[in-house]
């Protein structure tokens, strides 16, 4: 009885509901978001490439002489942690004396990995600087129970 009334109610509420054309808004917003994601990824890849080159260069320069790494210095190089799992990235950064802040970016793939870091890998910053990790929070997650 009540179930029937509820059915009727639902159908009368949306009877003759005319669809709004949401498409233009959706496409515009979606493309903006895609662009943002692309910039993030490009930035992350570029940072990784720079870190790699810097690392190799560092090795070859350092090879002949005694390493000068242990001089107390006013700046430290940020390690590259993009694409690392979050706990590993946190451990690495903490070990190198950085403070870690984690930010989530929703709507990306459920990687639960670092997709972007700031400052970029290889940047020289003051020891103890906060490094922000953007991690993928994954797509919309389940609600648990309704």
């Amino acid at each position, binding site marked *: *009885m*009540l*179930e029937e*009334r*509820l*059915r009727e*109610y*639902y*159908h*009368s*509420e*949306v009877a*003759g*509901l005319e*669809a*709004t054309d*949401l*498409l233009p*808004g*959706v*496409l515009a*917003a*979606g493309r903006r*978001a*895609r662009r943002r*994601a692309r910039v993030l990824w490009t930035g992350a890849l570029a940072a990784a490439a720079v870190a790699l080159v810097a690392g190799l260069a560092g090795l070859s320069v350092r090879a002949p002489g005694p390493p000068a790494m242990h001089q107390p210095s006013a700046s430290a190089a940020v390690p590259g942690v993009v694409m690392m799992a979050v706990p590993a990235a946190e451990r690495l950064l903490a070990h190198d004396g950085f403070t870690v802040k984690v930010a989530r970016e929703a*709507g990306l793939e459920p990687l639960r990995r670092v997709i972007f870091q700031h400052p970029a890998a290889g940047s020289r910053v003051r020891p103890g600087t906060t490094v922000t990790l953007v991690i993928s929070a994954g*797509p*919309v*997650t*389940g*609600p*648990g*129970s*309704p």
Partner: protein
Amino acid sequence: VGSDVGFVEFVHARSAALLRLAVLLTGNRQDGEDLLQTALVKAYRSWWRLRSPELAERYVRRILVTSVISWRRRGAAREWATDRLPDRQVSGPAAAVADRVVMRQALGLLSPGQRAVLVLRFFEDLSERQTADLLGCSVGTVKSQTSRGLAALRRRVGDLVEDEQVGGEK
């Protein structure tokens, strides 16, 4: 972009039905449109892996129900807008109009989860199993939410039912 063609077709084919679901889940047109738009943007961004209309439909419907539930959980930022004017002029016999207003208010007092379950069961006509799959909860939860929701509705709508029966009008 070529890959957008499938998405555009999907939206054209399905947005009317999805909007109806979104409007019933939120209780009003404006929130329903906002909800659907957000869900479609997410689907668009994930289109490369959704591809087929069936997967996309499932994905969007899942976003609709799960995000409407989490909206409400997050607090009073958005309220069930019973005091807002209906989008269309309600017409018909006075009794039917009153019936709808009472029903709308009664639904507004349910929990978001109960409302979602009722919409899925009695508007979308999903089975308990399908509802549970969509919400990502157990069949038992669907059953208990349904019966609790109906019981709460019955308490509030009950008076009206009796009035009608006494008046013999319908």
